[in-house]
């Protein structure tokens, strides 16, 4: 895989920024509370993206359920999918029961370790636990070795996970493509592990984020970022840390509509194809 640090650019349109997310690519996205690019997700569905290998680090909610329901996902790799307090993820559950997607069940720290392996440019990362879990039986890519530093000490090795594209939503980016991610540091690991990183942000910060030490400490350098698009409330209806909370009323409406294929189709018409953003 190539890692080409291109000059990060602020794109004129969201669709332009999302161009590298092609049918069949491996796409990495973060957990609900870390900044999910929902406006971008709706744009991808409008564009009709197909056969995605979606990797949610380490879990997912609405974003994954929406993409599954829209038929955009061939393979899903994550540790859990639900709507949190709003109940089960209806399209995820339906797809699993119908065998409509290939599920690669993981566990949170395993996914973190696999991204860290890619970040470090090593082929694998060890992890405790896992042995005796049925997850192992269904993940032939996870291996058990005898710890060379121990004595009869089995330990699991997990292969590096190198997504083609990482996609998330953040509060700020500057003109150099530096992105403020604050405490959501798994976004940094995602960007380091992925060949390309695409970010939507609430707004453009007009001064260099790296110049101010306070901002710099929570900034992903533009060096790792291929494209940035501005999308106000781009995580809606999901929360954006320190900016806005989850839209509980909307989540309840989604849970209700997505319970049936017909209701889900209505949801898509109303909130995705109608380009309604908020």
């Amino acid at each position, binding site marked *: 895989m190539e890692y080409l640090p291109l000059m990060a650019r602020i794109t004129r349109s969201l669709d332009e920024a999302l161009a590298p997310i092609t049918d069949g690519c491996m796409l990495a996205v973060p957990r609900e509370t870390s900044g999910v690019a929902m406006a971008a997700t709706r744009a991808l569905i409008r564009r009709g993206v197909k056969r995605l290998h979606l990797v949610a680090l380490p879990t997912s909610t609405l974003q994954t359920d929406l993409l599954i329901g829209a038929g955009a996902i061939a393979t899903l790799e994550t*540790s859990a999918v639900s709507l949190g307090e709003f109940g089960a993820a209806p399209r995820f559950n339906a797809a699993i029961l119908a065998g409509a997607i290939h599920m690669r069940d993981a566990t949170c720290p395993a996914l973190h370790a696999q991204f860290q392996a890619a970040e470090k440019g090593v082929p694998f990362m060890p992890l405790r636990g896992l042995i005796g*879990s049925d997850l192992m039986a269904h993940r032939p890519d996870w291996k058990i070795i005898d710890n060379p530093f121990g004595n009869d000490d089995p330990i699991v090795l997990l292969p590096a996970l190198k997504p083609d594209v990482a996609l998330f939503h953040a509060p700020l980016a500057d003109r150099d493509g530096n992105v403020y991610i604050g405490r959501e540091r798994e976004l940094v690991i995602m960007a380091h592990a992925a060949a390309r990183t695409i970010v939507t942000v609430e707004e453009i910060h007009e001064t260099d984020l790296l110049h101010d030490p306070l901002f710099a400490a929570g900034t992903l350098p533009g060096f790792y970022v291929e494209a940035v698009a501005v999308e106000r409330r781009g995580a809606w209806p999901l929360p954006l840390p320190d900016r806005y909370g989850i839209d*509980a009323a909307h989540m309840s409406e989604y849970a209700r509509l997505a319970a049936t294929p017909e209701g889900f189709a209505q949801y898509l018409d109303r909130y995705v194809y109608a380009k309604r953003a908020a």
Partner: protein
Amino acid sequence: MTEFRDEELLADVICRLIGDARHVAVGAASPIPATAALLARERAGLHNSNRLYVSLLGSRAHTFFTDGARELFDCAGQGRIDVFFLSGGQIDGEGNINLVSVGDYERPKARFPGSFGSAYLYYVVPRVILFRTEHSRRTLVPKVDFISAPGGSPDNVVRPGGPIALITNRCLFEFDRMQRRFRLASVHPGHGVEEVVENTGFAFDRPAQVPLTPVPSAETLRLMRTVVAPMLAEIYPQFAQKVFGVAAPLPSAHA
């Protein structure tokens, strides 16, 4: 005696199980354990004992983590999390938990969200408390259909952690790691031993006389309702509303 809700009783029981830990972490979708952890922190504060750190996954106000989603698991791997909570779509008599699916994994009859961090945290956190509010033969089964994480491991597997108890809407079980078996510790007020036996799909030990689960004190209920409940509203708005009548924050509340 003060009136209380089932959730308040369970939180009180869990709070006693937490004891005097240094760091209690609570995962996603665990409002009752979160209530118990925050309650334990308040109590520790009141009694000027050692500071209790509480980390609520997904919370902004009630976690100290600043290193991203990875930190919870690294922290546990360092031996720095004393108590964690796990549930299961199915839990069996050996403490195995199933968070994945019912029936054949390739052709499941029902699907649960997934294993979350259980396949790691169950092994490395010294005191894992299992909780399942629905106590039935559907949830407490002889053998889980899928082992997200096993209740025990062979001696050669490095495993400092594992289950210490299972709390349900009917009773409290304690877990014996040597025998890999549950023992009925107490039955909640309004429930009986026979009822527990009838509704439990696995065999378990029990004393001749099964004690009644102590009810929460007025002071405990006051702490829960006045101090803890408002904290819960941040990440469990629906729960805080339903159980404690605390208004959920508006979406703009974090802004």
